[in-house]
């Protein structure tokens, strides 16, 4: 008597082959850097413009929601008037958005003027669709000079670095992601540590010895070690310090200086090919 029929055999063989392929894929997978395949590049180039378009239509969508959908139940007599008001309000919302965008871009530009590196301004068009990864997609890519491992910042501080790049789009591994480790130092005490993403848009500062005089409210800046981030970029602020009864280090909670909830435009710093890796500390401190 056959214990396993032909169909079951095929299932087992297929499951095993795909599982082996997946295990191999996982073993080769790097969550800190990625070279996209040709297929990946092609599909990204086709789909990302849709994401960009949707992201750009955000203002119209919210204006539509606020100004039209919420007045559906108003009386007929007021319909025309309300419509006019809605249109005017919508115009005002759009103008206000443009004004705010202008302000943000100005701030970003004046901040980046202090940087010696080339920079590319880009818009956030999407977020990683998986829960466990905090990655953003930008609407600029290789054609704009963006390279893998290029640091990404705003006028508030560090966002992350470019994880993978296609011709017109790039993905940025933010500092909220557990796979991104940023070498930082406490601005006041010059104590070194590593910032890692955890959960709830917060980070943790690791490897701070128990006897270090760090305090809640201390600001963190990039240490310039590791070859990705230039020295002196704001990273975040210490919001909580816990001392366990055991262990040599402190548990330090950090809130990033960038408000990722409101992140819309960023600057990608293009590393100069001939640049000296680390600028003198005095210059770096002036930049902060």
């Amino acid at each position: 008597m056959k214990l396993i029929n032909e169909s079951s055999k095929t299932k087992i063989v297929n499951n095993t082959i795909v599982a082996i392929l997946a295990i191999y894929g996982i073993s080769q997978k790097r969550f800190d850097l990625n070279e996209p395949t040709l297929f990946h590049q092609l599909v990204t180039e086709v789909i990302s413009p849709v994401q960009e378009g949707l992201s750009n239509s955000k203002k119209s969508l919210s204006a539509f929601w606020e100004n039209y959908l919420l007045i559906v139940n108003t009386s007929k007599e007021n319909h025309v008037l309300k419509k006019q008001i809605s249109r005017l309000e919508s115009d005002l919302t759009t103008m206000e958005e443009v004004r705010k965008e202008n302000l943000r871009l100005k701030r970003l530009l004046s901040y980046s003027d202090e940087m010696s590196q080339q920079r590319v301004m880009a818009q956030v068009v999407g977020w990683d669709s998986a829960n466990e990864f905090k990655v953003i997609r930008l609407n600029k890519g290789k054609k704009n000079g963006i390279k893998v491992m290029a640091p990404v910042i705003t006028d508030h501080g560090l966002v992350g670095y470019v994880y993978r790049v296609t011709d017109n789009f790039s993905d940025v591994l933010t500092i909220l992601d557990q796979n991104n480790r940023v070498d930082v130092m406490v601005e006041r005490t010059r104590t070194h540590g590593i910032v890692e993403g955890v959960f709830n848009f917060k980070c943790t500062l690791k490897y701070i010895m128990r006897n270090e005089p760090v305090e809640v409210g201390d600001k963190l800046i990039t240490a310039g070690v590791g070859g990705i981030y230039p020295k002196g970029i704001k990273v975040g602020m210490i919001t909580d310090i816990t001392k366990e009864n055991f262990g040599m280090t402190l548990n330090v909670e950090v809130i990033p200086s960038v408000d990722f909830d409101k992140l819309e435009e960023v600057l990608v710093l293009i590393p100069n090919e001939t640049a000296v890796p680390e600028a003198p500390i005095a210059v770096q401190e002036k930049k902060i």
Partner: protein
Amino acid sequence: MRMRFSQIMISFAITLGLLIGFEIVTSTLLPAIGWKEYRLTFNVLVILFMAIRMDSPLVPWLIMGLQIIHSIFSIEGWALGTLAGIIVMMSANYLKEILQLTTAFMTMFTVQLFQFIWYLTVTVIICLKISDFDKFGLILWSFIPGSILLSLISPVVFWLLGTIWRVPNESGPRGVEI
């Protein structure tokens, strides 16, 4: 019920289109209206449908195809979800006698149960990859809010996918053989 290969390809292409639509909603539309903290991982829901409702040697390959498309929208890549999908499929196969998705509540309950198996697998692998099991609880916990929402909408999505794959409602959990 058996499907012809051409029918499978058509259903699969429609499913891929649906997945792309779902992924755009999760990665762009929801963050644009301020929903950034939790993701609705629709790929998990689509793969759970494949794993729970279909009975075929082709399913692992279909799961792999869906995950390859998902990897366009996430740095998670294709492999992690493919392995999780196969583990879920094998668990579903093992439990097929007791799985009865005859009511919306049962569908939600089953989807929640298998999502838990999925996220447990993914969390263990991620912790192994980053060599840090301290984050096990946090990573697993981060999946919970999104997974509950996904379970709540699962009857609708399963009905939609059932229509695409021609899975009759009354046929029980392992409805379609392809």
